[in-house]
């Protein structure tokens, strides 16, 4: 476990490097089209997390953390519920009820046709994706060989 190089073989690393952008793009597509087609914040967020997890599995923890800034991810993950709350309170202030729509509804079937749902989907996607990724990352930090030290 210690003398092996971190991560999997070169084939897996190369395929992962080629695919991770497409996976993340697909996740973003699902999040942005959540109000038009099946999907939305949760499904797209899970796809985002799976893209990041592919990198984590292929490259190991150290390389992944060099590529991603963990502090930024944690801050985003903690800030997203707050943004959701602020959007909801904006609905209270200008729309009359919590999460009431305050944006233009646009034309039917257009991308910007859902008012507040699109920003809410983005916030939920960030929250779900980053939470899932951070949960697995936290579990990867457990050292099974450490034993009962207390």
């Amino acid at each position, binding site marked *: 476990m210690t003398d092996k190089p971190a991560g999997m073989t070169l084939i897996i690393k190369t395929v992962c490097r080629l695919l991770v952008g497409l996976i993340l793009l697909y996740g973003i597509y699902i999040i942005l089209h959540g109000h038009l*087609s*099946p999907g939305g914040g949760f499904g797209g967020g899970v796809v985002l997390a799976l893209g990041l997890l592919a990198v984590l599995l292929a490259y190991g923890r150290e390389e992944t953390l060099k590529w991603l800034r963990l502090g930024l991810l944690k801050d985003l993950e903690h800030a997203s519920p707050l943004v959701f709350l602020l959007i909801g309170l904006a609905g209270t202030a200008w729309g009359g009820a919590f999460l009431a729509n305050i944006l233009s509804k646009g034309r039917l*079937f257009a991308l910007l046709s859902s008012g507040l749902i699109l920003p809410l989907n983005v916030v939920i996607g960030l929250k*779900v994706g980053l939470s899932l990724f951070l949960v697995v990352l936290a*579990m990867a930090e*457990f*050292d099974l060989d450490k034993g*009962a030290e207390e």
Partner: protein
Amino acid sequence: MTLYALCFALFLVGLYGLLTKRDLIKIILSSGIMGYACNLMLVLFGYRRGGVYPILERGREAGPMVDPLPQALVLTSIVIELGVTALLAALAIRLFQKYRTYDITKIRRLSG
């Protein structure tokens, strides 16, 4: 009716695993199966024969649709289940660090 019975059978499979298995990982998987059976049951409650997914699209007539309410409920339930599974897995890892085993019959020392 058969489908509901099959859902219940799936739930019983999970319950059987939860009660009889000794391996912690198998117990976590069993609790997941129980949750999936419940989710399946809830989605089936909202099913209508011949219904399509409840999303209006360009150029589609409004026809019979399945009930979206149980689906929204199940989405929430899946998220909660995910959290519970993650918590159980973290507890299993901590137990393995302490006892060097996943066998619950060997985990019997109740000291902090």
